[in-house]
């Protein structure tokens, strides 16, 4: 059963701490997306990679967020330092090809709470 796996599922941290979220895309998928979902803003695209290369990270606050793909089976999203306004559900999704023709398969998300 192919699925996108995200860890951790829940994270509570104190303001100022570093947070790392991990994602294992579906084997064979070459496009990975990071989304953030909040009640106020809805689903926002933070960054996406194709063939491990970052294509667009304009949705990320550059001073504190960073996204990487160390290898084809792992994508990471880091926040340092974290702030209460970062509290949200962070979704990773993977797909084949470009965004125009890609069905994105979403992971179950990481619910982040920064206190």
């Amino acid at each position, binding site marked *: 059963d192919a699925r996108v796996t995200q860890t951790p599922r829940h994270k509570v941290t104190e303001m100022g701490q570093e947070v790392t979220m991990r994602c294992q895309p579906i084997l064979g998928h070459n496009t990975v997306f990071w989304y953030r979902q909040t009640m106020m803003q*809805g689903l926002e695209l933070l960054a*996406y990679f194709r063939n491990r290369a970052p294509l667009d990270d*304009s949705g990320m606050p550059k001073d504190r967020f960073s996204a990487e793909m160390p290898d084809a089976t792992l994508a990471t999203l880091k926040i340092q330092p974290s702030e209460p306004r970062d509290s949200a559900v962070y979704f990773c999704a993977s797909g084949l090809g470009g*965004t*125009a*023709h890609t069905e*994105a398969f*979403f992971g179950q998300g990481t619910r982040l709470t920064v206190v």
Partner: protein
Amino acid sequence: QQPVQSPQAVILREGEDAVINCSSSKALYSVHWYRQKHGEAPIFLMILLKGGEQKGHDKISASFNEKKQQSSLYLTASQLSYSGTYFCGTENWLRTGTASKLTFGTGTRLQVTL
């Protein structure tokens, strides 16, 4: 540019039909539809590309009107399992001749009751 969805919420009785609209202020390249149940991940429904096509999936179908820069999702003979929040995501044409990144609307909450 975030697409605008309407209505924001709708309540249906099982068996009734619903239409959810998604409008963009810029020329559309593609429209993606997803459904998300509370506490779960969004699930892909369909993608429509420019050309005014219509797609269907069981009793859920969608149209894409390039001229009007909008897409509509049609839910026919709704079932309890259709309950959830429906999101449209759009890619717009850029001056460079390429597509913008995918941007989602704020969602339409659909509740189907007995």
